[in-house]
C-alpha cells in the first residue's frame, strides 16, 4: 500500500518558490495552472525581493526565486546560489500615477503632480524597492524631482506606497499598474500611465536556486513561466510579458 502510493507520486515533486510580494496574486494563479498541467505541488512564500534575497543567501530552502527585478537574480547567479543559465524574464512592470483624492485631480493625475502644493506624493523607497527606483527615474526624467522631493513619502515597498494613497494619507502615488487592477482597491479619482521610456524597464526575473539544480520540476516551472500560457496570465494582472 505504502509502496503503491509512493510510486504513484514518483513524478510529482513539491517545489517551494519564493515570490516578490508584488507578484503574489498572479503567482497564485500561475502555480495553480502549472499544478493542473504537471501534477507538481508548488508552495509559495512571499516577501520583498530584498528580504527573500537575504533569506536565500542565508540558506532558505527555496527551489525557485521570482524577484521583482533582474538585479537580485543576477547577484545570486554570480554568487553560485542560482543555477547559471536558468535566469528568465517573466514579467515587465509598469508604473501609474494614482489618486483617490477628489478636489485636486480634476485635470487628471499628471496635472495634479504639477500642482502638488503641500500634499504628499507616495513612492516606494528607491533604495530598496525596484518600483521605487523606477518611480525616481520617472520623476527625474520628467524634470519634477527637485520640486516634489520635499513632498515625498516613502513606502518600504510598492504595496505600502499604495496603502498610503488608499488610506488618504498621501494624496497621490506612483504605484504599479498591476496594483490598480486589484478589485479590492477603493475607486480612484484618476489614473495616469507613466510612459515606459521615462524609466528603465522593470524586468522581473526568475532563477532556479542551487538546491534545485537538476530538479526537473523546477526546470519545468521556469519553462512554463517563459511560455505563452503564463504570459496570458501575467498580462491579465497588469504586467507586460517579455517578448
Amino acid at each position, binding site marked *: 500500500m505504502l509502496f503503491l502510493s509512493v510510486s504513484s507520486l514518483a513524478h510529482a515533486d513539491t517545489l517551494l518558490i519564493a515570490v516578490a510580494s508584488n507578484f503574489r496574486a498572479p503567482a497564485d494563479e500561475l502555480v495553480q495552472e502549472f499544478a493542473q498541467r504537471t501534477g507538481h505541488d508548488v508552495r509559495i512564500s512571499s516577501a520583498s525581493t*530584498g528580504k527573500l534575497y*537575504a533569506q536565500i543567501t542565508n540558506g532558505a530552502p527555496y527551489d525557485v526565486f521570482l524577484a521583482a527585478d533582474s538585479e537580485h537574480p543576477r547577484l545570486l547567479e554570480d554568487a553560485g546560489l542560482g543555477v547559471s543559465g536558468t535566469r528568465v524574464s517573466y514579467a515587465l512592470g509598469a508604473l501609474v500615477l494614482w489618486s483617490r483624492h477628489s478636489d485636486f485631480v480634476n485635470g487628471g493625475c499628471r496635472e495634479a503632480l504639477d500642482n502638488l502644493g503641500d500634499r504628499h506624493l507616495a513612492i516606494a*523607497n528607491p533604495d*530598496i524597492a525596484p518600483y521605487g527606483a523606477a518611480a525616481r527615474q520617472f520623476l527625474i526624467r520628467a524634470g519634477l524631482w527637485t520640486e516634489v522631493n520635499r513632498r515625498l*513619502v516613502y513606502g*518600504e515597498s510598492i504595496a505600502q506606497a499604495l496603502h498610503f494613497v488608499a488610506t*488618504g*494619507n*498621501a494624496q497621490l502615488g506612483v504605484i504599479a499598474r498591476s496594483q490598480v487592477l486589484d478589485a479590492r482597491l477603493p475607486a480612484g479619482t484618476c489614473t495616469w500611465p507613466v510612459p515606459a521610456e521615462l524609466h528603465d524597464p522593470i524586468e522581473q526575473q526568475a532563477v532556479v536556486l542551487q538546491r534545485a539544480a537538476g530538479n526537473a520540476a523546477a526546470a519545468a516551472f521556469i519553462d512554463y513561466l517563459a511560455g505563452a500560457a503564463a504570459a496570458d496570465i501575467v498580462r491579465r494582472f497588469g504586467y507586460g510579458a517579455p517578448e
Partner: protein
Amino acid sequence: MNLGPLWLSVQLAAITMLLLLVICTPLSWWLARTASRMKPAAQAIVALPIVLPPTVMGFYLLILLGPSGAIGAWWVRLTGDALTFTFGGLVIASCLYSLPFAVQPLMNAFESVDKRNLEAAWTLGATRRDAFFSVALPQSTRGYFAAAVLSFAHTLGEFGVVLMVGGNIPGETRVISIAIYDQVESLNYAAAHQLSGVLLVLAFVMLLAMFVMNRRWQRQ
C-alpha cells in the same frame, strides 16, 4: 556614518519621555490610589501596547491620524497640516506606544507611598496637591527614574509603528531603526552594523544605569 537618524531618535525619545512623565503622573496616581471598579479595565487599556503588535497600533494610527481620520482631521483644521508623516505624529504614536513603560514604574512607586504620611500631611492642613508634591513625589524618585529610562529606551527602539505612519522622510520621520532597516534591505550590511552597534551600546548603557541605581537605592 550618518548619525542624523540617531539624533532624530534621541529627540523623539526625549520629548516622548518628558511628555509621558507629565501625563502619567496623574494617571498613575489615580491607578495607584483608586478603589474604583473601573481600575482593572483602565489597567488593561494602559497595558495594551505591551501585547498588541506594532502593526495593529500602526494601522489604527494611520487611520486616526490621517487627514480624514478623527484626530488627523481635527489637527488639520487646527494647524493646516496632517499628523501622519510628521515628527509630531511620531510623538503622539510614541507616547501611546511607550505609555505602559512609564505608567507601571510610577504606579508601583505611588503604591508604596505610606498612606499614613499623606494623612498626616492632610491633618496638618496640606491640600491634596501639596501633600502629593511634598510627601509622595520625593518618595517616588526611583519610580520616576525607572519610568524615564524605560520610556526613553523603549521609544528609541520603536520600529513597527514608525514604519507604518512615518513615511520614512529624512530628518522628519527616518529614525534610527528605520535607517537600519533600509541599510539591511539595500544590502549595506557595514552601515547597518555601525548603526546597530551604536544602538546596542546605548541601550545597554541605559539599562545598566538603571540597574546600578536600583542596587544603590536598595542598599540604602
